[in-house]
């Protein structure tokens, strides 16, 4: 019986803790326990042997920290892993041949029949990007080295344990799957039942099962009693067997030593409860000993395990939480998709990530459950942009994403990098497309959107669309993809082109729900293409679709008509407890209606400092309300007022020169005179940015190009990740009409020089917060001087002084954002004259 069969057949027992046993045998603090495989094989074999006598099935090799970062010497890692596996095998051989180890007991009566060796892999001790600095692919490579060393030895499975970051777990699972061996995963939760990086047990199940682990569960950090809630959740959602390896209670210190307070009898009692909940792979972690595990096995052996069952929950997830389909309709925000959106197209072409991230956060505020991410434009490198969009969105937004692309390279790379279990948009009934998408979905996990179109086109009947859906389910099953991980999109098409189109789509929704018990999704707003006031039709169609069983909608959560339909539907269908969400929505609805009315200039500014100013210098009277709004820092109003002015045919340049810049000057002078301080200055800058956003929308829609007062590069230098200062400078410069190429933070000198040459840039602004990164600034300036001498530099940041700036040969030191603006004005006016 191999291990995969064993876990299906009944209870399987892991061994317990290792650290406390090795410490008792003399392991010193700071000493690497993995070295003991070579230096003290007798101790390691003895530990394994004692666990086997207690009745254990699976031994964890003493390789928790065995990775190439710790054991970097030639062949060192391989040597340690081989010794570790040999030690486990030696113990198993001794027990199976009933030959006691030297000086050991010969009571084999409690030993189990079947024994397996698991290659034990622990976390790397470094945080992955964006939280830390370890790249996902580097983590994967490090794990892969350990896995390969293990594959060269006689191991039965790989156990990835004590993971406290689901992203790191994903890298480890992908590496472990390369071995072809069964892969088990256990993660470590804190008292709030979450991983360090935020995932709950349900989310871990979604991600790990998506990646194809053979068993999953929990270990370390907590004692069995503190784990009960976690075990409940794991057993509710996991279809694979659940593993529970607790500590012997919580650690405390006694006379300078770490001790655990749960004794073998208590441990066994708690594990009995855990087994009754449905866990079937049981063992221990820190503080547990052969007596703990022996007592547990003694107790649990008398029980019958609960049968395994295929759970029917359809889950997707981010790195913190999951979204379940089939309970109430799921809202998928459609705003990050360039189709028909000129402003987004422009952002994609200009690599303006901030705009894309703003769209993400905005939709999160508007209560989207999931964000669709489509960055396909013919003139950009889609795979590269997709990775950028996915990783940067995930750095700031914790909603699950829908990877939306027809480019298989972009899809694979995004699925690999994605932190969680995504939606995959899309597959369809064409053989060729299924052949491309299903292997990726199988490898990385995901909920696949299946369009009811095949080689013959889109069927004109609901039955025809159901048939394609059924073909797709069947094909998916061949790849091992379950029906619950397919969501069918029966396609909404414009009623202005095909009068029956809505009727067919609605009938298809109903058929897929009733005949196939399948989930459905629609791009709802397609229904109204070509009609005026599309929102009106969309809202009603959305209601009808939900009535016919729609499980998810790709839609604009900023549309009041759509949200009205959604909130009312949920309230009416008893999907909104006490109508709380409906009631909250009515406030948003009223606010939206109010803001749609012409914006008034006055408002309750939170900003006292600059409120008593005169606007004598403003020539054009109709611009005064906007000036006042920017001075007071009323962001939303500034955007709306600007849109109104543009709609009244006031030229964009008049608004910039006649209102925005004079307003910023008023606040800027107050700042320079120390009458206004940074937050007030920035509130005005935020307001001017909102005004600019309205201008950009208008310009993009008209297909024009914005005039620029000069282009320059900004970057936070290599090694430095502090970018608030640089961002402040950027926004103010943009508000004054400059075109900023923002290279971001931690930027290598070479990239700055290369970009300056390529874009013919004559001014580079560099920022550094820490003394340790000043050399990187100096290096950047040196390289610029060598390779692009016509370029000037200005520098700033917390550690900079005029003297420092001189020393590293910068052309100018700017003490704050306003001074940088003044310098840029001076610099570019000098260039043009």
């Amino acid at each position, binding site marked *: 019986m191999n291990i995969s069969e064993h876990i299906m057949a009944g209870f399987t027992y892991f061994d317990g803790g290792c650290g406390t046993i090795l410490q008792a045998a003399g392991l010193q*603090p*700071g000493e690497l326990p993995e070295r003991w495989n070579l230096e003290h094989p007798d101790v390691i074999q003895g530990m394994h042997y004692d666990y086997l006598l207690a009745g254990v099935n699976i031994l964890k090799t003493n390789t928790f920290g065995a990775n190439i970062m710790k054991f970097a010497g030639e062949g060192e890692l391989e040597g340690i892993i081989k010794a570790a596996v040999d030690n486990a095998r030696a113990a198993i051989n001794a027990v199976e041949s009933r030959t006691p180890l030297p000086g050991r007991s010969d009571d084999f009566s409690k030993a189990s029949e079947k024994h397996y060796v698991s290659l034990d892999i622990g976390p790397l*001790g*470094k*945080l992955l990007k964006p*939280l*830390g*600095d370890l790249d996902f692919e580097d983590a994967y490579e490090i794990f892969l080295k350990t896995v390969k060393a293990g594959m060269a030895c006689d191991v039965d499975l790989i156990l990835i344990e004590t993971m*406290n970051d689901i992203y790191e777990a994903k890298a480890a699972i992908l590496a472990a799957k390369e071995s072809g061996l069964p892969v088990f995963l256990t993660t470590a939760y804190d008292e709030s039942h979450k991983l*360090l*990086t935020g995932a709950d047990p349900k989310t871990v199940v979604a991600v790990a099962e998506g990646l194809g682990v053979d068993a999953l569960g929990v270990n370390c950090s907590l004692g069995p009693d503190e784990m009960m809630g976690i075990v409940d959740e794991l057993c509710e959602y996991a279809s694979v067997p659940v593993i529970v390896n607790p500590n012997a209670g919580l650690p405390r*210190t006694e006379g*300078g*030593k*770490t001790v655990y307070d749960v004794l073998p009898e208590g441990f066994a009692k708690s594990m009995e409860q855990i087994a009754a909940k449905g866990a079937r792979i049981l063992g221990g972690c820190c503080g547990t000993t052969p007596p703990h595990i022996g007592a547990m096995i003694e107790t649990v052996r008398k029980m019958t395990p609960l049968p395994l069952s295929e759970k029917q929950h359809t889950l997707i997830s981010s790195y913190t939480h999951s979204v379940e389909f089939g309970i109430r309709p799921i809202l998928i925000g459609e705003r990050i998709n360039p189709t028909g959106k000129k402003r987004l197209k422009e952002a994609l072409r200009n690599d303006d990530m*901030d705009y894309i*991230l*703003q769209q993400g*956060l905005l939709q999160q505020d508007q209560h989207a459950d999931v964000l669709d991410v489509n960055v396909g434009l013919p003139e950009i490198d889609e795979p590269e942009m997709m990775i950028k969009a996915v990783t940067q969105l995930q*750095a*700031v*937004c*914790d909603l699950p994403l829908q990877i939306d692309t027809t480019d298989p390279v972009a899809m694979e790379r995004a699925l690999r990098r994605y932190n969680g279990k995504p939606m995959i948009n899309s597959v369809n009934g064409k053989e060729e497309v299924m052949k491309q998408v299903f292997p990726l979905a199988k490898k990385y996990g995901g909920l696949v959107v299946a369009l009811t179109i095949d080689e013959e086109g889109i069927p004109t009947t609901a039955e025809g669309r159901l048939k394609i859906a059924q073909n797709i389910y069947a094909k998916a099953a061949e790849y091992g993809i379950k029906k619950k991980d397919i969501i069918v999109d029966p396609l909404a098409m414009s009623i202005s082109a095909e009068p029956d189109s809505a009727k067919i789509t609605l009938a298809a929704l109903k058929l897929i729900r009733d005949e196939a018990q399948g989930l459905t999704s629609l791009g709802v707003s397609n229904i109204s293409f070509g009609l005026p006031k599309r929102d009106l039709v969309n809202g009603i169609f959305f209601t009808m679709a939900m009535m016919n069983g729609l499980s998810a909608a790709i839609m604009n959560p900023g549309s009041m008509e759509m949200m009205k339909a959604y909130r009312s539907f949920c309230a009416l269908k008893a999907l909104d407890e006490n109508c709380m969400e409906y009631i909250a929505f009515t406030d948003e609805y009223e606010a939206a209606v109010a803001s749609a009315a012409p914006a008034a200039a006055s408002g309750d500014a*939170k900003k006292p400092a600059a409120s008593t100013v005169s606007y004598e210098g403003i020539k054009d009277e109709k611009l005064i309300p906007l000036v006042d709004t920017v001075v007071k*820092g009323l*962001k939303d109003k500034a955007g709306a007022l600007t849109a109104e002015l543009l709609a009244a045919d006031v030229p964009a340049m008049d608004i910039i020169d006649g209102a925005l810049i004079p307003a910023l000057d008023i606040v800027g002078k107050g700042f320079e005179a*120390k009458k206004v*301080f*940074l*937050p*007030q200055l*920035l*509130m005005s*800058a*935020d307001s001017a*940015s909102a005004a600019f956003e309205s201008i950009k929308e208008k310009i993009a829609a008209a297909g024009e190009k914005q005039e620029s007062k000069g282009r320059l590069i900004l970057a936070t230098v290599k*090694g*430095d*990740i502090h*970018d*608030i200062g640089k*961002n*402040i400078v950027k*926004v103010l410069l943009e508000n004054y009409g400059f075109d900023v190429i923002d290279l971001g933070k*931690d930027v290598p000198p070479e990239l700055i020089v290369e970009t300056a040459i390529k874009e013919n840039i004559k001014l580079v602004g560099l920022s550094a917060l*820490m*003394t*340790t990164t000043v050399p990187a600034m100096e290096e950047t300036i040196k390289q610029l001087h060598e390779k692009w001498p016509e370029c000037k530099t200005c520098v700033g940041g917390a550690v900079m002084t005029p003297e420092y700036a001189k020393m590293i040969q910068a052309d100018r030191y700017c003490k704050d954002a306003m001074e940088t603006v003044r310098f840029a004005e001076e610099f570019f006016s000098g260039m043009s004259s």
Partner: protein
Amino acid sequence: MGYTVKTYIADSDKLIIPGREVARYLGYSREAIMAGDELIEETIKKVRGLIAGKAVYCRYPVSFFGEDGIQMPYGAVHSSQLYDNLKGCEEIYVFAATIGAAFDRELGRAKIRSLADAALLQAAGAAAIEAVCDELNDRLREEAEAEGCSLHRRFSPGYGDYALENQKGIFEILNPSRLIGLSLMDTLIMSPEKSVTAVIGVEG
């Protein structure tokens, strides 16, 4: 013999985060600092909900050699300023503290949404981690005073000639990544961003 690293958890609701400190970080004038500021008070309130102040600390023996040599628990260090700071001490506390990753995530979002919010959060976060350190410092002082000892001023890697490189040694002995989710990057910057490591001399 091993040293047991202890964990300290701050109560976010009770933490004293002075508005004046936040105003100072934001570059307010002296009069404006004294006047108080509603925006700042609101930000501090928000920050309380975002932070989970945690620290790990441990007490170790310390000895000195040569003109500026200090035998730290993780190895020998040369720093005349730390040497002066620790003179007269036979023991030190070493600690690592953080306000957690949720703050970083919110700051990341604020950077995209609103610069004003980002700058306010940034300043309030800086004041919050100082507050966590102050509170821990007070607790350690009480502990030391109960034994008739006194504490010197706390000193962090990167102050004067006590090189930032010492972060590595401190992370090795305290292992804060496992206990409080605080990790050190290759650039010697910590993640979460609002975190502090420091040494405090124990005299007497």
